């Protein structure tokens, strides 16, 4: 038993190493190619800076980047949280009440097709220049995967479990909290991870449309002043932000679903 366990642990550690080492190795190779090919082909810095230039631009402007990361982080996290709660509530409503499902679901799917980016300028007219229009954009973009995946989880409860549920005479409330909600959690997390990735896109797009701060604003500024190394450094900051937020959800998922089959 212990031999099997340590063997499994070693294999797991090996897997973890290769999951980090393989893509990491590829990135290093690509960065090295980038670093040497760009001067070799005589490309200007304002067109494509080399990785070391991006790194030093990022370091020199670290306070500026940090200052502009906070608003974007705030918009993303607040918008995501609202989208998550709203998405769960709507999913529960449409799966619990057939009439709501019939009324709301076609509209939801219809509004999924509406290009929300196209209506972003309208939000400035409606909600002004502050955080509100950005957060609303994030909510609109991040909301759908939560609804769809949570609803899928709630409807995929096997019929035997539903029957068992009813034979135990549980109230709907108790059945929901003890069975339906935990049952749908793996699906919910799929939706949440997708929502988090989309939330950042929503924040940046909203900042592109109108803003005086945030990484989206910094990107536009760097672009219009031909500070291409700074532009790339802001992209790196944005990527790091996205990866960290995504990993927070993954970590939460690993903790919540720790007892389940993977």
């Amino acid at each position, binding site marked *: 038993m212990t031999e099997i366990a340590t063997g499994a642990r070693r294999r797991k550690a090996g897997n973890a190493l290769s999951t980090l080492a393989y893509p990491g190795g590829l990135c290093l190779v690509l960065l090295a190619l980038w670093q040497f090919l760009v001067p070799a082909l005589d490309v200007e810095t304002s067109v494509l800076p080399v990785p070391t230039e991006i790194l030093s631009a990022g370091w020199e402007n670290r306070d500026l980047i940090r200052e502009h990361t906070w608003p974007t982080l705030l918009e993303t996290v607040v918008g995501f949280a609202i989208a998550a709660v709203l998405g769960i509530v709507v999913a529960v409503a449409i799966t619990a009440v057939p009439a709501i499902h019939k009324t709301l679901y076609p509209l939801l799917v219809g509004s999924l097709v509406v290009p929300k980016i196209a209506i972003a300028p309208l939000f400035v007219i409606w909600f002004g220049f502050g955080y509100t229009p950005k957060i609303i954009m994030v909510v609109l973009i991040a909301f759908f995967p939560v609804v769809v995946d949570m609803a899928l989880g709630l409807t995929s409860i*096997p019929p*035997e479990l539903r029957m*068992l549920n009813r*034979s135990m005479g549980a109230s709907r409330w108790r*059945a929901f909290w*003890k069975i339906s909600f935990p049952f749908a*959690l793996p699906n919910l997390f799929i939706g949440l991870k997708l929502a988090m990735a989309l939330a950042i896109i929503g924040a940046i797009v909203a900042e592109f449309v109108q803003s005086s701060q945030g990484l989206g604003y910094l990107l536009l500024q760097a672009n219009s002043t031909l500070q291409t190394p700074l532009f790339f450094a802001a992209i790196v900051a944005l990527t790091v932000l996205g990866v960290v937020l995504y990993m927070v959800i993954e970590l939460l998922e690993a903790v919540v679903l720790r*007892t*389940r089959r993977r």
Partner: protein
Amino acid sequence: MDPAAGLTDVRAASPTTGDDLVTLDGVAKTYTTATGTTQALSPTSLAIRRGEFLSVVGPSGCGKSTLLTMISGLVPPTAGEVRIDGELVDRPYRHCGIAFQTSVLLEWRSVLDNVLLQFEMRGIDPAPHRDKAVALLDSLGLEGSSRLYPRELSGGMKQRVSIARALIHDPSLLLMDEPFSAVDALTRDQLSMDLQQVCMDRGRDLTVLFITHHIEEAVFLGDRVLVMTPRPGRIAEVIDIDLPRPRRLEDAGREKQAAYAAHIRETFSRVGVYRRNQHEGGQA
């Protein structure tokens, strides 16, 4: 047993003695779908005696599971009525335990907590029942497994947990819908023997309705075996299995158990469960 007996009159299968736990009177089920109506179960009258183990065998789609869900009150019959202890079943009957073909355990709960779910869902504090649940798990061959999670269990172990969950609240009626059909043959044998023991321990306090495709299993476990016809299902025959307990699974292929099984196959053949091969002779 009278092998010469024809289709038993359904009324004869329901003697109205005062010692019946479940009575079905003209219970039928018709499903309406987009393509029309399907009769799943012909009007059926039947009495399940208190403390007996009633096996039900029949081909797929003969309405065995429908019968079970109607007795449990989960699905209303289209016609007729089900009574348990004289009371009309018109909503899910709460004093029963149910075990299905799949164990439907909750993956986020330990074995013990899966069993105790039965209390939690009824709004009863499960804490005072923990020791009893552990003892029940032990008696079902799950010693020391109460802290494990479902993903750590084999199919047979999961099925044992599901049986424990169905029995923990001491129901008077245990409804089992092909509970052993998803496990391997040897595990199935072991589960049959263990189930016989559990039922013997509880004696008249536990009545069991056990649905299966497996003829030998039905004979081995049943005090009576109810044989059903193909759809629309009706009772072809009810056979008393007159063998002392504990029965030995080793005897399943021998003498009396085998004779009962052979008789059931004859009945199946007569009511058209088996498709006849052409070279077998032009009987039908």
